[in-house]
């Protein structure tokens, strides 16, 4: 295939609109009559919408799509799908169906689209779901993603903000893919770093989710465009505080190197602007700060688990081959929402 998809504009979750802008717009939308079956809507800034249809089934609905962050179409398809499917796992659910969302220039080689969608459909199958259709439009740039529907038991939903003081926080994937992809765009990323980042971005959170099901999970989210600190801030939801041990946070070492070279995204800075008032760093080097603000594409799960089970859960995740680690703990609400120490 000769033609490569150009992703000259930052792709992946670096393309998300900043959280600040979004909340201002969302606040003003008309809400309509309250439906008691809507268990989770956008009021709680959660990963997906959850709607109860019976005493033991609730539908989980989510969608994600974005421009490419890699130039290989099949890989892009896999990453985009993995990312979209992740939100179902972040709610504690199971994937059932998915619909393609496609934007594609009419004049581009259709085989490229075929490759993107091949990557996407492979991941839907791996997730145990069925690709049931989709929608495509002509666009000046390529964008791809999925609208996904899953199911969850209404009593076993993982909210974002259900964490309790004393809970330990576990992160299941390494941070830094945003910076690595960005460095790659300007030809400054090593092939090994890119390979590791891609491998991380195409790993379904299904495996982590399945293991978590046997534990007392109080809250869960997936770390994506708003960065580790951004999503952690959502988990605190104005009612909790937390302490993070930066040395324990799994990161790609190359991401730290590239951050020291200032190969940073606009979205990263937007994340910093949005969350920095809630964060206090103690002896954390600049590069590590940037990795914590780095928008992740298809990042890992960030779970709040009962303290007594944390080490066992961490071990089980690691034995499954995931770079999971306990990164901190939730504490009673204090003056500082998120304290990060090195």
């Amino acid at each position, binding site marked *: 295939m000769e033609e490569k998809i150009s992703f000259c*504009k*930052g792709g992946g979750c670096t393309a998300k609109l900043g959280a600040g802008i979004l909340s201002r717009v969302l606040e003003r939308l008309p809400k309509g009559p309250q439906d008691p079956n809507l268990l989770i809507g956008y009021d709680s800034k959660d990963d997906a919408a959850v709607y109860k249809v019976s005493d033991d089934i609730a539908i989980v609905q989510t969608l994600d799509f974005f421009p490419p962050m890699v130039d290989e179409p099949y890989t892009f398809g896999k990453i985009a799908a993995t990312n979209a499917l992740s939100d179902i796992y972040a709610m504690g659910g199971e994937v059932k169906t998915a619909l393609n969302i496609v934007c594609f220039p009419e004049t581009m080689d259709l085989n490229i689209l075929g490759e993107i969608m091949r990557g996407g459909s492979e991941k839907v199958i791996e997730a145990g779901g069925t690709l049931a259709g989709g929608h495509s439009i002509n666009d000046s740039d390529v964008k791809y993603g999925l609208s996904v529907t899953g199911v969850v038991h209404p009593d076993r939903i993982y909210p974002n903000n259900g964490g309790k003081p004393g809970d330990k926080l576990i992160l299941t994937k390494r941070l830094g893919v945003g910076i690595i992809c960005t460095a790659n765009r300007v030809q400054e990323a090593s092939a090994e770093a890119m390979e590791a980042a891609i491998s991380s971005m195409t790993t379904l959170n299904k495996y982590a989710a399945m293991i978590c099901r046997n534990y007392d999970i109080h809250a869960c989210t997936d770390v994506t465009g708003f960065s580790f600190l951004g999503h952690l801030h959502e988990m605190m939801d104005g009612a909790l505080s937390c302490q993070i041990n930066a040395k324990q946070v799994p990161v790609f070492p190359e991401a730290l190197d590239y951050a020291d*070279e*200032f*190969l*940073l*995204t606009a979205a990263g*800075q937007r994340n910093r602007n949005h969350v920095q008032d809630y964060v206090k760093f103690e*002896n954390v080097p*600049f590069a590590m700060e940037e990795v914590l603000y780095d928008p992740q594409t298809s990042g890992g799960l960030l779970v709040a688990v009962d303290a007594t089970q944390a080490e066992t859960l961490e071990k089980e995740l690691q034995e499954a081959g995931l770079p999971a680690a306990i990164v901190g703990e939730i504490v009673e609400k204090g003056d500082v929402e998120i304290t990060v120490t090195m």
Partner: protein
Amino acid sequence: MYGMEEKEMIKVDAMGDTCPIPVVKTKNAIKELNGSGEVMTLVDNEIAVQNLTKMANQKGYGVKSQKLGEGQYEVVMTISADGASAVTELAESTVEEETVCYPDARKKNTVVVLSSSTMGNGDDELGAILMKGFIYALSQQENLPTTILMYNGGAKISCEESPSLEDLKSLESQGVEILTCGTCLNHYGLSDKLKVGEVTNMYVIAEKMTQADLIVKP
């Protein structure tokens, strides 16, 4: 013979570029400077201004930015020959400002600068005793300073084993801002030995000093 020092200025056009391209282009221009000079980068959004400013602050370059018009911003970095920070006049930054609390206008904004762990020249042993005495006397003043800045040798004063920790803590508990230069802590291997106050950088140090009503340097 006196002459105007010619500062080399390289212009970088990063209009329409998404991060990190403005930073990459600027870094390349800085390499071309061969030591010292200025680089002026044009970008079309505030976030790029912030990312460029971040880099300049980390590297210790002087930096100022301004909005030229709708979708047009200019960031000028000053790199000095000795590689240390060239502190330039802080121009109005048009990056979105957060609400700032201004100190009580009736009270002078006094900044104490401690650039060494000893006070005066002659005998260092005496100097250390004098500095300890000075900080104690400071803590007993009726009008306390707003901020105490510590850098280079002064960075040791806020770290483990310093004889002035109690006095600094007392000052801090009465609302005095205690700031120690991060680069200096790293240099002396004291990064994890800071006992009072917070870590700061040259950008903040320059800002505090230029905005002070009175600078006290013992």
